[in-house]
């Protein structure tokens, strides 16, 4: 008993005497001190923060071997074993920067990214909605970025000398077969998906990841929103239709249902249309968005939609431009996808997805019937291994089953042409992302595809690199091969074709400073194996060959400034030199969708006093080539330049305590008669001249008015 008391007394007395002072300095790789770092002995309260000079000092009574830990924002945690019985406990520690810190290098060659969460991106989702002239369409807003062409009669995106079919859209990683509504001749179409669905958008004008295939020129990668925040109902009243939606949020689940009805009849009766409509576009649509949180970090998403649309137009005939023929279109589209993303252990991320689409487009052209139906089912699976700071390895596979059918009933011949096909496309990819410190990053990958229809495979290597050249600036390079199965309209006649191929070379410089960004990018693209034929719609397989080719070279410049309060603007300019010999081109020529110079200015200005946001978009495109059979030289005629100034205003207010946005948009403030090109009759008239008409916007001036009301409980 006495001894125990003695021991206790000894322990009590001796303890304070054993306190050791631990001190030192925390610096970064350049030797700069790091103030505010947390230095401590693991499992105890003993520790200190570093001062202005990166120095720290604290006392501890702990004995024996201990672990000294240093933690600091933007740097990797440092741990080291120390022995408290040593005489000298002075530590000078160099912290290594964490690669996910602010301002770390990112691969930017080719890519424009819009995100709420990530830092240092070029665009935000809200920008898509508030861009004048974009009309709330994702593709309309993307069309203000450099690298895109102004092709007003299509409404689709054409990137860096590529045709519109060379750009593919991915919804949570799943390839969308029909991203646009089916279109009428020379009437611009729109994207099917509402920009509200997505919280992150990457527009890549080249050099994209090996995860994405079947796109020769460009990938638009749309990532959908997570769980809805709260219960909300909304109503939209527009000059072109009505819509309503309801969202319900539970603890780990959310569900949104929405429906819309479009009818352009009232609008067309007010605004004079250049084309003769027998039935203005009318349609309805319903969609569902489901989210389920699975465990700590897993998320299951599902989206489904069904849409129906009809329109009927009287359009100049192919044989005689004077004589109008009627084009009647009924489209029914079903789309569904579901994806799961979750963590397996600490270092594996799994992504899995399934999608299904069924699109029926029935055209009636005078007495002839053209019914097209495309069904696609896709499964995709990705695994990513993350060693959090240095490297990431991703690999995955996908399988796409596509069933295409077209039935063309020619009334005058009483003959039915049926051209169905089935294609099973299997693909695998792997990619290594290396981050060597905050100054150098590399992405090296490859993609392999096999198409059962073509009975051929392709292997596409891709490499991207990025280096920091200064604190806020970087250079990024990309090179890669891109393959695409020939378009359905050729593949259905000729299954023995080869994949079309493009090789991209891209160099990019970017500087971001004080809410200003400047980017300049130069590229060269080499096209091989493009489909060529002598006459369109030839049913003879041997008439289609892969001997088309082409090239595109250019410079894209982008400047955005958000540093001025209430003002935000961006300027983009693209110069392109491109020629190709494909389809039925007799010689290498500049395709009709290309303007050598494209310039856009987007300005947004907030008037906080009146809760309004004003937007202006100016679009300039130099003249485009058009085919004139009266000219012996192929595609040597050019239209005059295109100019457009669009304006929009969003006024935020409340109607009976419900948050309301009133949106008004108007195009062509300069009152120009814009011409996209000319169409010629197939046959010359009596004087031996081919007659033509001009392809113009649908109406001289587009006007849109909408009221969007959200009804929340609070």
């Amino acid at each position, binding site marked *: *008993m006495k001894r125990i008391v003695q021991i206790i007394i000894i322990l009590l007395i001796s303890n304070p005497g054993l306190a050791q002072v631990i001190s030192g300095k925390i610096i970064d790789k350049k030797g700069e001190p790091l103030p505010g770092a947390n230095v401590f002995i693991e*499992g105890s*309260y003993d520790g200190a923060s570093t001062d202005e000079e990166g120095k720290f000092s604290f006392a501890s009574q702990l004995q024996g071997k201990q672990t000294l830990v240093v*933690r600091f924002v933007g740097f990797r945690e440092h741990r080291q074993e120390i022995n408290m019985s040593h005489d000298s406990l002075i530590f000078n520690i160099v912290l290594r920067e964490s690669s996910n810190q602010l301002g770390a290098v990112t691969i930017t060659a080719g890519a424009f990214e819009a995100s*709420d969460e990530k*830092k240092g991106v070029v665009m935000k989702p809200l920008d898509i909605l508030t861009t004048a002239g974009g009309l709330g369409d994702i593709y309309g807003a993307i069309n203000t970025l450099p690298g895109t062409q102004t092709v007003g009669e299509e409404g689709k995106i054409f990137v860096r000398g590529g045709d519109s079919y060379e750009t593919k859209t991915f919804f949570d990683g799943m390839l969308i077969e029909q991203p646009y509504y089916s279109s009428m001749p020379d009437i611009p179409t729109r994207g099917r998906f509402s920009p509200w669905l997505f919280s992150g958008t990457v527009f890549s004008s080249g050099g994209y990841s090996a995860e994405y295939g079947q796109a020769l020129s460009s990938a638009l990668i749309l990532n959908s929103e997570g769980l809805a925040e709260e219960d909300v109902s909304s109503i939209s009243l527009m000059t072109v239709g009505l819509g309503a939606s309801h969202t319900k949020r539970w603890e780990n689940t959310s569900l949104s249902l929405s429906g819309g009805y479009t009818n352009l009849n009232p609008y067309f009766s007010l605004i004079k249309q250049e084309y003769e409509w027998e039935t203005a576009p009318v349609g309805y649509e319903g969609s569902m968005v489901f989210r389920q949180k699975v465990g700590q970090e897993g998320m299951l998403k599902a989206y489904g939609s069904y849409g129906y649309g009809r329109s009927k137009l009287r359009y100049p005939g192919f044989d005689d431009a004077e004589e109008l023929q009627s084009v009647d279109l009924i489209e029914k589209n079903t789309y569904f996808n579901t994806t799961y993303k979750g963590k397996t252990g600490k270092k594996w991320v799994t992504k899995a997805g399934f999608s299904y689409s069924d699109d029926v487009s029935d055209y009636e052209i005078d007495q002839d019937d053209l019914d097209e139906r495309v069904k696609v089912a896709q499964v995709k699976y990705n695994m990513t291994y993350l060693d959090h700071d240095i490297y990431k390895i991703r690999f995955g596979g996908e399988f796409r089953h596509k069933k295409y059918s077209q039935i063309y009933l020619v009334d005058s011949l009483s003959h039915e042409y049926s051209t169905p096909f089935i294609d099973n496309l299997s693909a695998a990819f792997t990619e290594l992302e290396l981050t060597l410190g905050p100054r150098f990053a590399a992405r090296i990958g490859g993609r392999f595809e096999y198409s059962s229809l073509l009975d051929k495979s392709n292997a596409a290597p891709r490499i991207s690199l990025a280096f920091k050249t200064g604190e806020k600036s970087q250079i990024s390079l990309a090179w890669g091969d891109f393959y695409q199965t020939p378009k359905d309209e050729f593949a259905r006649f000729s299954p023995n074709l080869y994949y079309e191929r493009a090789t991209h070379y891209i160099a990019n410089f970017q500087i971001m400073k004080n809410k200003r960004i400047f980017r300049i990018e130069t590229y060269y693209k080499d096209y091989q194996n493009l489909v060529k034929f002598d006459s369109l719609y030839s049913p003879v397989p041997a008439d289609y060959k892969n001997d088309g080719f082409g090239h595109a070279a250019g410079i894209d410049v982008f400047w955005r400034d958000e540093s001025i309060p209430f003002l935000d603007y961006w300027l983009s300019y693209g110069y392109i030199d491109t020629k190709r010999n494909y389809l039925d081109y007799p010689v290498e020529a500049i395709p009709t969708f290309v303007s050598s110079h494209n310039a856009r200015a987007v300005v947004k200005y907030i008037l906080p006093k009146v809760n309004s946001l004003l937007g202006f978009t100016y679009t300039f495109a130099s003249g485009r080539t058009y085919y004139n059979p009266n000219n012996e030289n192929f595609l040597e005629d050019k239209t005059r330049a295109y100019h457009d100034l669009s304006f929009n205003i969003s006024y935020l207010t409340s109607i009976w305590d419900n948050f309301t946005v009133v949106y008004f948009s108007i195009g062509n403030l300069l009152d120009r008669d814009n011409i996209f090109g000319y169409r010629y009759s197939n046959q010359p008239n009596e004087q031996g001249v081919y007659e033509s008409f001009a392809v113009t916007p649908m109406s001289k001036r587009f006007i849109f008015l909408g009221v969007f009301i959200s009804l929340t409980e609070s």
Partner: protein
Amino acid sequence: MILMILSLFVSMGYSQSENYEKAMMKNLEKMDAAESPDDMQNAANKFERIAMAEKDQWLPWYYAAYASALKGYMGLGPDQLDQQLDKAQELLDKASELDANNDEIEVLQGFIYQARIQVDPQSRGQQYSMKANAAFAKASQINPDNPRPDFLIAQNLLYTPEAFGGGKEAACAKYQSAAEKFANFNPESDIAPNWGKEMNEQMMNRNCK
């Protein structure tokens, strides 16, 4: 003899927990007295050290997150603010791992979301207000007597235009409701969250008279 050893263990155990509370109290005072971002960082670091030592206490993580978020309000630029809030979020996530259904953690979550708005009010305003309000609603659901959700909602309403249901009148109603709850609020312990009362009074005096 056995009694002696037992009592020794008991007293050791007691002293450790006493030590924890003492350390927390001392550091809470430091946090309240912080005048510069550096002072606040020191307090946050100390809470983080306590948190790393006390494996099953959520409060030190909570305060480390709170101090980190407060530092964000001490004059950081937008980029730094975002990074600071990332840190606060990371610390708060640790707290919620230990206690998943906690009104105070939800309150602080809403507070961090509100701070995110400062980085880019124009594009983040709506989204993060919604996120913050959802967190406050959850906090009130867990504990309807917690005054902090009303106080923070009032802070947001004060700077929201009247057209969107904000303005002084709406804010004052919430400050008032918060004040009533503050008057009846008894923290669970000396170190349990108990902030906002003075600020609520100041804001009422300034705006609601």
